[in-house]
Structure formats: C-alpha cells, structure tokens
C-alpha cells in the first residue's frame, strides 16, 4: 500500500464529541451558532437514524428525545483538525492536508519501519482513538483512490494494486464532490455509481462534459495519478473549546481543562514532544471576548498571549512534561489562587513544545527533588504564601541595602554539568570571588561586618527613636525593643540612586543594646492539670542591631539584627 487516507465523517459533530467524550456513540446534531435561525448544520449517523435532518430548526430537532443538540464550535474544529494532522505526522513525514476532515499519507518506503498495511491501520486506529476521533481509514495505490475510499467506506478499507476500479465501483457519485449542475446531469443520464460513470465512453463524455467529466471518470476508475502536496505543519499545539453555557465555578472548569490537557498531551506524544510552558486564555462573560453580546467574534481565535489578552495566564515548568494530570493540578492551583473574575465562555490552552526530558542516572550526582513533585509543591506553596514569595534570591548589581529579586527555583541537580557549575559557583562565593558576569560582590565581601557576621533583616525596617547625648547614641527604643546602647560603631555613610527616583542617603550604626525582657521559664517539679506551669522572669540580654538614620528626614530605623 502506497497511500493511506484518514477521513473524519461528520467532522463538526466529531469536533464537538471530541470535547465531550460522554457523547460518543450517541445521536448528536450540531446547529449553527448564530441565531436566527438556528438550523442543523451537521449530524451523525445515529441522529439520522433517529429522524434528524440537515436544515431542521433547533426546535424541531429538540423534539427528538434521543438526539443531543450542540452548538457548532469553530475552536473545537480547529483543534480536531490539528489533532488529525498530528496523527498523520506521527506515522509519515509526508502527508497532504486535503481538507479540514481529510488527510492523505504517503507511506512509500516506510514498510520496513511501520510494517504491513494491516499493522499501520491498527496503529492509526489506536492513535485516533487516543486523540478522541473516529476516522475512516483507506489504503490504496494512489492518493485519490485512498481519499475516495475513505470518504465512501466506513472503517478500514484496503485496496490492492489494480483493484481500484472494482472496489470503488459501488460508491455513489456524490462521493466525488460534484457540482449541483453535474449532479443533475448524471442523474438525468441514470449514472448513480462510480462503476456506471467509469463505463461511459471517454470521447463522448469529453464532448458533453468537457475536461471535468474526464477527470471525474478517471477518479471513478481509481486511476488518477498525481503528486502529493506535502503539508508543512508547524509545531503549534492549541486546544480550545466554546462552552455551551457560562461556567462560574472551578470544579466544572476543571473537567473542561482536564479534557483539553488530555488531548494536548496526546498530541504532544504523537509528535514526540513535551511542554515546558503553557498558556491558558479564558473568554469571560462581559469581557472583551464575550461571544453572547458579540456573536461575530465567536469564530475569532482566543488570544493566549498575556500582552494581548488580560485574561490569559502562563504556567512555566521546571522541566518539560506531558503528564496531563500534573498539568491539571498546577492549573487548578493557579485558578484557585486567582479565580476568573466572571463566568467563563471559552477556554483555550496553548503549549510551547519542547524536547522531552531525558535524564541519565548518575551515581555521583547529588540528590535532588523530583522535578514534577517539586513543581507541584511550588505551585501549592504559591497558593499558601502568595505570588513572588518563593524562589531563589538573586542579588542585584547595586549597593542599595537589601537589593535582591526572587527568581524561580528552577531545575536543580539534573545534570552533572549543572552540578559542577553549581559547585564552582558556590566555591567562588565562598572564597569571595564573584561569578563571571553576574554581580559585583566585592563591596560586600570587603566589608568586614557582612563577611564575618550574619544579619537578619526586618522588612520593613522598624521605626525607632534614638537618644543621642554629646554625639553618642545612648538609648534605642522601637516597637519591639527598648534598651540602653552599650556600644556603638559608626556612622557609616551610604547613599546612591540620586539619579533615579529611588534615592537613599543614610548613616548606619552597629549598636550593642542591653535589653531587659520577660522570659518564660518552666517551674521544675510542679505540674498542673492543664500542663507544665511556667513563670515569667526578667532577664537582661545583649542584642546587636544595625540601625540607620535617614539623612533626608532625620528618622531612625532598625534595619536588622546580627545573629
């Protein structure tokens, strides 16, 4: 078999059923989205059997109890078409995007790799089921014979060499996509099947119907020879769904996201890819994508770029994955932390493809958390402590006190190279050598105080009152501390950023403060019914603080505690 064709019969219905798997096997009719009038646009075989017909109004078809009525979803059709192309791509690099519902594969030269036609057929059918589509499959010696067989016969059809005319002969001529005029002419002649059309004399047919008639006859004989027009399918993974009704709660939204992510991950698997970045776009009721008030825009693509669509959000992962359950959990954490401000009308998820992570185990690598578990824990942590509160601190290239930013705690310890790099970095920092091209830490390293002592910072700094007598600091009072200054070292004048609006100008002091505080201590040997008794006693302690005076307004602050 040289060519194969995949055809999705009743494509608009299949696109809807793909998003709602519970409709599989049931009678479904798809109506046009914009009223009035809401006419049946497409329906499956079960719906035809139940009495539904194309062109019926929504009210008429709703009277048929067993027929499920759904609105046509252009977004779902785009996703189904993309899934069909991914399916083709996973078997052959040469395929033709013949129509939204049809794709033709060139299998020449792939027999050693893929096996017999029957094996390829089984593989294609299994992968199609994973993708949630029900495709007719046909194998034939030429592309057009395969396409016509797929459109005309349900299930899997195998047509051998020189069997085309015989096998296709029984198909009705409507399969040839005839124009209305041609259809009437052939009907008037009593030509209803491929076999009858193929038997007509070519010269007379050409005289009456022209080149189009000859072309149709060649197709009906299954002998058309043409080159395949290969499709260049870009690596773009997007799944979208128009919702029948606005969804206001997270739980039903989770089902929809789960389905979309499942489909997305199967498509990624088909292309041998994973994803490290996902974007979720939501069209909200009353939002700029509101399709109820503006029916014209329902066919527009939902923008997933955060710059263009304020309702889109991005999920970045430490390592590429295609685990749909993990991705769903991460999205749910995000949605719980930042729920949509209005009911959701439409959902679109885009995945940036990345090569799957291949980790080679190494006995000498340091232990590291499982990236997937870590990603999940970090997402949960964000929900607990808030956005921007978790990550690795990164010092900024400035002398401004407490200047740092949080960067994501990305993949750790996955390769020996990274491990070595990290070791080198930590060794450099230990011996006071900054990493090349990162930051200039020399001022901090040369500063005896910071290199020898560890500081705990108060964020924000505590407002304080300092008593100064004869130029010496005598007493320090703040909200949480009060004591006599025993020893002070300073002032150390620092200033900067006068060229920006974030100027600072202050005098720093290190002060040793004698603090009298209450301390609870356990009374030994005595127990009450409620537990161990304790009493409070006053204890004098020495604390060591870093304080500063803002020279712009003269106010004092306690910036940290040496510990």
């Amino acid at each position, binding site marked *: 078999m040289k060519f194969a064709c995949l055809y999705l019969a009743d494509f608009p219905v299949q696109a809807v059923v793909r998003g709602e798997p519970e409709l599989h096997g049931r009678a479904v009719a798809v109506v046009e989205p914009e009223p009035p009038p809401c006419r049946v646009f497409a329906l499956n075989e079960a719906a035809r059997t139940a009495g539904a017909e194309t062109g019926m109004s929504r009210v008429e078809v709703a009277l048929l109890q067993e027929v499920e009525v759904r609105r046509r979803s252009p977004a779902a059709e785009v996703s189904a078409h993309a899934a069909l192309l991914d399916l083709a791509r996973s078997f052959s690099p040469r395929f033709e995007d013949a129509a939204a519902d049809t794709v033709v594969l060139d299998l020449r030269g792939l027999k050693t790799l893929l096996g017999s036609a029957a094996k390829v057929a089984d593989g294609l059918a299994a992968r199609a089921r994973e993708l949630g589509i029900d495709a007719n499959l046909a194998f034939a010696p030429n592309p057009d014979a395969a396409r016509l067989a797929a459109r005309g016969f349900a299930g899997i059809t195998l047509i051998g060499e020189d069997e085309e005319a015989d096998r296709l002969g029984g198909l009705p001529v409507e399969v040839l996509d005839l124009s209305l005029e041609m259809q009437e002419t052939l009907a008037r002649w009593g030509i209803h099947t491929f076999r009858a059309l193929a038997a007509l004399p070519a010269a007379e047919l050409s005289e009456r119907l022209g080149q189009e008639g000859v072309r149709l006859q060649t197709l009906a004989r299954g002998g058309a020879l043409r080159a395949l027009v290969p499709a260049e399918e870009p690596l773009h993974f997007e799944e979208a769904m128009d919702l029948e009704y606005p969804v206001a709660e997270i739980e039903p939204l989770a089902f929809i996201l789960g389905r979309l992510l499942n489909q997305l991950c199967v498509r990624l698997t088909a292309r041998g890819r994973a994803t490290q970045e996902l974007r979720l776009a939501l069209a909200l009721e009353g939002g700029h994508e509101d399709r109820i008030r503006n029916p014209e825009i329902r066919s527009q693509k939902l923008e997933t770029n955060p710059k263009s669509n304020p309702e889109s959000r991005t999920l970045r992962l430490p390592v590429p994955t295609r685990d749909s359950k993990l991705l769903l959990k991460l999205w749910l954490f995000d949605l719980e932390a930042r729920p949509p401000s209005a009911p959701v009308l439409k959902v679109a998820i885009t995945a940036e493809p990345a090569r799957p992570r291949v980790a080679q185990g190494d006995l000498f690598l340091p232990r590291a958390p499982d990236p997937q578990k870590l990603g999940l824990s970090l997402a949960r942590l964000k929900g607990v*402590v808030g956005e921007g509160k*978790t990550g690795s601190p990164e010092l900024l290239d400035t002398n401004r006190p407490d200047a740092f930013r949080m960067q994501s705690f990305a993949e750790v310890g996955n390769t020996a190279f990274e491990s070595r790099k*990290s*070791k080198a970095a930590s060794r450099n*920092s230990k011996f006071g050598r900054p990493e090349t091209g990162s930051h200039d830490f020399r001022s901090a390293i040369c500063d005896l105080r910071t290199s020898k002592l560890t500081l705990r910072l108060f964020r924000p700094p505590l407002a304080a009152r300092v008593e100064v007598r004869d130029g010496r600091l005598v007493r320090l009072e703040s909200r949480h501390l009060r004591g006599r200054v025993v020893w002070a070292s300073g002032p150390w004048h620092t200033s900067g950023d006068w060229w920006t609006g974030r100027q600072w100008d202050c005098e720093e002091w290190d002060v040793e403060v004698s603090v009298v505080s209450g301390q609870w201590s356990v009374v030994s040997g005595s127990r009450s019914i409620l537990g161990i008794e304790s009493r409070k006693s006053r204890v004098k302690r020495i604390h060591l603080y870093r304080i500063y005076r803002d020279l712009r307004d003269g106010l004092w602050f306690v910036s940290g505690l040496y510990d």
Partner: protein
Amino acid sequence: MRSAVWVRAQVEAALWPGVPSPFARREARVPEMVPTGLAAVDALTGGLPRSSLTEISGPPSSGRTTLELALLASLTAKGEACALIDAEGALDPASALAAGVALERLLWVRCAGLEQALRAADLLLGAGGLGAVVLDLADIPARRARRVPLSYWFRFRRAVENTPTVLMLIDEEACAQSAASLVLRLELEDIHWSAAGIRNSPFESRKSVPHAQLLEGLRWRAQVVRNRNARPELLRMND
C-alpha cells in the same frame, strides 16, 4: 500470677497481623551526619543528623542564623538543593552569600507568620529530595511557638525519617521536645569590637571613638540539650 511469657503471647495475639513481632529488637539506625562547616559545632555534635529533626534555640544575637547558614552553605556546596522556610522573611541574601550559600540552590519561602510557615513545611517535606529543610521561627515569639501542637513536630520528624533530609528548626526557646533528635541551645557570650578587643561586661565604660571601631564578630556558646547519639557536653566557641 500470670507469667511474662503468657502476657507476651497475649500481646502478640492481640496485635497480630498488624504488628507481626512487637517484641523483636530493631537495630537503631545510625543517621548520616552532615558537617556544618563550623569546626567547634562539628566537634561537639559530630555534625547534624539527616533523617532527623534538629532544633537550634537561643535568644536574638546568639548565633542561630550563623549556624543555619553554615548548614545551608555546607549542603549547597555539595550540589544539594535546600529549602529555607522563613516565618517572617528575615533572611539577608547578602549574608547568605557571604556565608557560602549557593543561592541558586536555595529555595527561600518567605512566609507571613507561623501558620504559613507550618503549612509550607508540610508541603516541602512531602515533596522530598531536599538536602535540608530549615524552618526558621526565630522571629516568632516563644509563647506562640510553644503553642504549636507537638503532633506537628512528630509529623515533620516522621516525614523525614526515611529520607536523607536534615530538618532544622530555629526558634527562641526549644518547643519540639522529644521529637527532636538533637537540641542545641545557643547563648551570646561576647562581642568583638576592634577598638576594645573582647569585652566581657556590657557596663564597661567606653573610651574609644565610635567611628574608629569595627564590629568584628560574636562569641557564642553552644550547649547540647539533647543528643540521641552522644552525651551532653558544653562547648565554647568563636564565630
């Protein structure tokens, strides 16, 4: 009077099959010790145990954060990922870097209070794979920290029991009680000022000019309150 053998048989029968041999001796596992990089502390304790809860308590300016960062520096230098759950977000990244911590391998969780810190600890201990998880409650008042139910500390200890994680708790007064395998109490002894040398009394009169002095370091004392692997000792050390 019932014999011990009879009682033993009854207990074994009652616990069967959930506990197959309740009286069987189990070999106590010796935990792997992680050196902190502070020679005196390592000499005193042999390092800090993995798979266990270590509690470091002491008043402000007693060297708790120095010890905390020393542990993080020791582990991150080996390429291990560590987490610091900071109840009040008090970490100074510049100090951490100066102490030798590889910041890119440190997960810093800036919490807004005790409850958040405990929840974060629950989550991170469940993730596993971290070299150390430090729960820093140093800025939480001792009275509040003591109100944390003991079950929390036992649960945390259970979470790291079969993992190579060092779980360190920093607080003002010890509160984990028997859940901790190693409890160290730190106290400030002296402060080094460059102009005056080591001062023993806070009431000594000042003779030098303030800006001619430099704060050089702290001298603190570590006392082992509990160590399941060694007998208590007292140590004096210099930072």
